């Protein structure tokens, strides 16, 4: 049975044919909007452990508001931490002077550092995967951009004295599992990434103390790497001469070895799988949303965001002819190489009919969004070219 919309399209096309939507990858998961304490209503993917996604409209601002920022936990015991009671322990077999520091002393003893960066969950867009894969069925909003402020991890490690044999830095936080048998969420980074000047211990997000649900009072910021490394409620840092062998490194957050570009995590790599590391070049159409109707002759604009691993966005291209030809969109203000970059392009609304747009971003390192998904069993790294189907009437 043809709807009125199909008939309009059929008329515009000149003959009747089944309409194939440009983007059939809509998540089938129902979207329930609900608010955690201190948060706006977000898309509730799961209540406990809490996994809440930022709605598309809230991804329009240059900096994602703290109360709209996505929430992602693996384990359900999430203590509210009193800032004056919190301590950070720095130690491990590869440091000379282990120490423990209060929040006040951490803030007071190290140089302040700030940067804007995208925090993107490794599994962002998993719910759009085909074939479907188990896991939190995220749409596009397991990501956001924020200004993170705190101290450099490097400065903190230097005070402890990093030995020459240091291989990995291991991070754990205050949240934990219900059952003692469940592996705590512990992650490691290669020593060189930990000592990178852009790796921070953030105490603030967009100029405010970190929200509870985003890791208060301190979390790790690993710009350019996916969110799994951005340890929330950070309490312990250990520098070790051996690869960390916990579940969340050895069995989770892994991709087939060699399947994706990006930094290698050599000490954790096997012949079959390797840890997910850097964010792949990607873009998101924020508006108009898929299926929107535009008024003929009225001004309209395609708006979205593009981001990558920190190489920086070189260009965002838009096609309106089924990817045959591409035109450069106008890039917005550069908020820093780890942040997302807004893009805009005026839309031609002079003629009635369907308008299908495809968007692809290109990184300064030459990487471009692919047309086809590289399937992997955990549903990571969906950075394929996005499309929206609009209608001008």
């Amino acid at each position: 049975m043809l709807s009125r919309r199909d008939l309009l399209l059929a008329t515009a096309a000149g003959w009747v044919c089944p309409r194939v939507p440009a983007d059939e990858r809509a998540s089938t998961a129902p979207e329930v909007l609900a608010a955690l304490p201190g948060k706006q209503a977000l898309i509730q993917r799961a209540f406990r452990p809490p996994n809440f996604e930022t709605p598309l409209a809230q991804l329009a601002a240059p900096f994602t508001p703290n109360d709209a920022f996505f929430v992602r936990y693996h384990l359900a015991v999430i203590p509210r931490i009193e800032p004056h009671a919190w301590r950070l322990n720095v130690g491990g077999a590869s440091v000379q002077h282990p120490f423990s520091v209060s929040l006040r002393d951490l803030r007071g003893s190290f140089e302040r550092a700030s940067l804007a960066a995208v925090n993107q969950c490794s599994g962002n867009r998993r719910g759009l995967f085909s074939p479907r894969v188990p896991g939190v069925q995220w749409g596009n909003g397991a990501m956001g951009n924020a200004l993170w402020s705190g101290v450099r991890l490097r400065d903190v490690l230097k005070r402890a004295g990093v030995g020459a044999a240091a291989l990995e830095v291991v991070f754990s936080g205050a949240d934990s599992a219900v059952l003692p048998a469940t592996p705590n969420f512990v992650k490691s980074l290669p020593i060189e990434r930990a000592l990178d000047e852009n790796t921070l211990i953030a105490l603030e997000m967009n100029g405010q103390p970190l929200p509870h649900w985003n890791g208060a009072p301190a979390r790790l910021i690993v710009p350019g790497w996916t969110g799994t490394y951005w340890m929330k409620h950070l309490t312990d840092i250990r520098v070790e001469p051996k690869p960390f062998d916990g579940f969340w490194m050895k069995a989770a957050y892994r991709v087939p070895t060699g399947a994706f570009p990006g930094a290698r995590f050599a000490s954790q790599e096997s012949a079959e799988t390797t840890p997910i590391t850097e964010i792949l070049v990607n873009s998101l159409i924020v508006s108009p949303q898929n299926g929107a109707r535009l008024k003929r002759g009225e001004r309209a604009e395609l708006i979205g965001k593009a981001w990558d691993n920190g190489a920086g966005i070189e260009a965002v291209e838009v096609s309106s002819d089924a990817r045959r030809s591409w035109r450069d969109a106008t890039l917005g203000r550069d908020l820093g190489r780890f942040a997302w970059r807004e893009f805009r392009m005026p839309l031609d609304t002079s003629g009635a009919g369907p308008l299908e747009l495809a968007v692809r971003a290109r990184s300064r390192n030459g990487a471009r969004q692919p047309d086809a998904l590289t399937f992997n069993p955990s549903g990571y790294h969906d950075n394929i070219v996005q499309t929206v189907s609009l209608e001008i009437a």
Partner: protein
Amino acid sequence: MRRLGIAAAVGAALFGSARLPAAAAEDTHLKDAPGRELTVGRCIVCHSLEYIPANAPAENRAGWQKTIQKMRERFGAPITDEEAQQILDYLDANYSGKS
């Protein structure tokens, strides 16, 4: 409760009073069928139940078997072999390829 009230009030201010956003809650009801009580009882120890319908489109019998095995072996869920079989039968009958 007070916190939830504040969140709702903040939400109302942001979204307009016409539509109060619901406070997040744990209220998923799994399908009534043999094995439901056991499944609920074991799963809710560690997580809320919407993980089950949410993953249904991605699961089949082999997938659920793998998931149950992961919960037992990796995450230490206290589920006996016999219980695992009953939970698998329930999940497969009610949440394989269906949302």
